[in-house]
Each structure stands twice: as structure tokens, then as C-alpha cells.
């Protein structure tokens, strides 16, 4: 079991589903089990998306510039 800080509250969570999690990682915890690690680069894309589609608005195929599907 690992200790996870939820905005000031420390709780225990299982890392069995996330064996490569490290100290200081941001993780998603669901019912006491950590299930995903936040991808910090992908996390920026919501803030940049409008800018990206704005610049590319006139092109017919914008798919390759949209947030990647993987």
C-alpha cells in the first residue's frame, strides 16, 4: 500500500495495478486502487486545443494536429 495525498488528506491506496508509480507522481485513485498515472504532457493539450484548431481552421484534414488518440 502507498500513501497518496488528496488535496491535503493522506489516504492509503494500492499500487498493484500501477507497479511503475513513483514517489511524487500524480495518480488517479478509484475505490482505494491507483489505476492511472497523469501524463503531464498530454495534460497541457486541453489548454492548447482551441489555439490549435484556430490556427488550422482552414485546412480540410486537421486530424493529425488534434490530441493524439493514444
Amino acid at each position: 500500500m502507498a500513501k497518496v495525498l488528496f488535496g491535503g488528506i493522506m489516504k492509503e491506496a494500492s499500487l498493484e495495478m500501477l507497479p511503475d508509480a513513483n514517489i511524487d507522481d500524480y495518480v488517479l485513485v478509484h475505490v482505494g486502487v491507483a489505476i492511472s498515472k497523469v501524463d503531464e504532457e498530454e495534460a497541457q493539450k486541453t489548454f492548447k486545443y482551441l489555439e490549435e484548431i484556430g490556427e488550422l481552421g482552414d485546412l480540410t484534414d486537421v486530424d493529425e494536429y488534434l490530441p493524439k488518440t493514444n
Partner: protein
Amino acid sequence: MKYMSEYRDPELAKKYLEEIKNTVSRPWSIMEVCGGQTHSLVKNGIIDMLPDSITMIHGPGCPVCVTPLNLIDKAVYLASEKEVILCSFGDMLRVPGSQKSLLEVKAEGADVRILYSPLEAVKIAEDNPDREVVFFAVGFETTAPANALSVVHAHRRGVKNYSILASHVLVPPAIKAVIDDEESKIDGFLAAGHVCTIMGNAEYHPISAKYKVPIVVTGFEPLDVLQGILMVIRQLEQSKSSVENQYARIVREDGNLEAQKVINEVFEVRNQMWRGIGEIPESGYAVREKYAEFDAAKKYNVTIDEAPENPDCISGQIMKGIKKPFECSQFGKKCKPTNPLGAPMVSSEGACAAYYHFSGLVEA
């Protein structure tokens, strides 16, 4: 970055709304599958700020709401047994069974406990060797790994007095069922980000291709939902239909392989009854024979008669997106969170509860 409050920025939300308005040229109906997204849409007022030409249809994505009445009656029956400690998530306790809810049997003296995690239930079983601990394990794919893990822990530690009453539901078959329903008319979907965190996106590609619908895997914060809606609309306006991932900071294309492994170890796919909707093929999980001793359905072979639903509750139509909560004659009148007639008024992810708490339509 905290990866939460940043996704609630009102200024960027306004820009997203602006872009949505500029992109839409005709009416579209979009279903958000997950109750968490319904909650976000209603609580944050997004639903009132979207252009009139966009109709958000609230999907069946509330596990508590679709847990069969018969199974709730079974849990109530087990909880009434002297040796049983019945544990579940908080929402499950207030859902009305045909006679009583778990909360009511608790008030009558039954040992019913609200837990944060099924892993705690295994510990309670170890601490109470002369009692039987049953965890009422409801949930979508997101919750399945934790429930499966509790069984693996109990097995590994030789705990004999632990079992789960499983009512697991799976999202992709439900999306197909919703599209196939003749009454529903949905142009695009926001898929549930946390379900895909576990299962990945692979199951959605064939659905998107077969039915020619855009499916965007979407998160739960206001900006996530707005971006997801914009991505669906952009596809629709360009006559495209593919799977995109708005929630890539959390969801990997393949999902969480460790979690899938433990699910497959403990569960196998079966046909599943959805309360208010009916049976959907291959849309649930049963405990595998290997772990039969941890399967409460087998351990306590009780037959509970099927009881009729409350005739005043239209939850089936609500969960298929055919009717909105305020179109129900009982909404906010006989049916309130303090006295729910059906599950969508109970759960924090239920559409009726979300409308009751946040829409301001109750007094209208």
C-alpha cells in the same frame, strides 16, 4: 499543476462555449454515457449554456441505478442474516429494494457498513473470523479491478469468510444497445474516461465504424466535457466518425493492462440485467468457477422472487435518454433524494439527482 482545478477555468470554458457555437450549423444529439459527466454538465450549468441546437442525452452510466431490483432484495435478505456483515459503497444503501433499502435494514439492527474500498472488506473479514462478510460489488469496468483484487487478496490470505455479490456492468454493449433502440436518436457519444482508463479504447473503434458515430473518450471536469462536446461536433459537422481521446492525460490507448489481467483472472463476461433497461448480451461480469467460494451468489443459494418496479418511476426511459427527469410526473414531488422512487434519484451519478440538486427546475 494539480490536474483538477485548472480544468475548471471559467475564462477558457467561455472560449470553448464560443467555439462550440461557432462550429454548430444544425441540431445534434450527443449522449454522455457516464453519470459523472451528467453531474458535471448539470452542476456546472454547462447544459444551460450550450446552444439550443445541441441536445445532451444522459446515458445509462450509473452502476447503482442499473443494479437489478432483485439483487438489491438479495443484498437486503443477506444483510438481515445474523452472521452477515454486508458492506458496500455509500450510494448503494439508499437504493429502494422492493420492500426495503439496505439503510432501512441497517436501522433495524442489521450490520451494514459503508466502505470506501472493497479491500477494506477483506480486512473486516480477517478481523471477524466468526462472521461472514459480503461485499455488494457494483460498478462499471472502472471498479472491477478493485473488486477483483479483493477476491485475489482473500484467496491469497486464505480468508474463508469473504465473498462478493457481484453486479458488474460493461459500457460498450450498453452503447450498442442504446444505438439499436429504435426510440433513441443519438448522433455522437462522449465515452466514459474512467472506464477507458481500465479497458482502453479498442472496443469503441468497431462501434464507431459500424454505426458511423463519433465517440470521444472524455474526462469529467467542465473543460474536459466542453472539449469532448466540441470534438464530437467537429466530427459531426465534417461528416466524420472516429474514436478520439480527449482524456489522454489519464487514458492510454490500451488501458491498464495490469487491471485487465486481474479482471480476467477473477471474472468472466456474462449476459447482464440492467434495471430499467432489461437484459443486454455480454454486458456484465460473473465470478469465475475457480473463485466460486468467494461468489456470494453461489455461497448463499437463495432465490428471491422477482418483484415489480414502482409503477410511478420512469427510470428506464430516463436512462435510455428518451425522457428528461423533469418530464416525470413524480420528479421533485413524490420522488426526492430523501424519498427516492427509483435509483436515478439516489446516486450522485443519477440523472434525476443531478437535476434535483442543480438544475433549479424543481420548483418550476
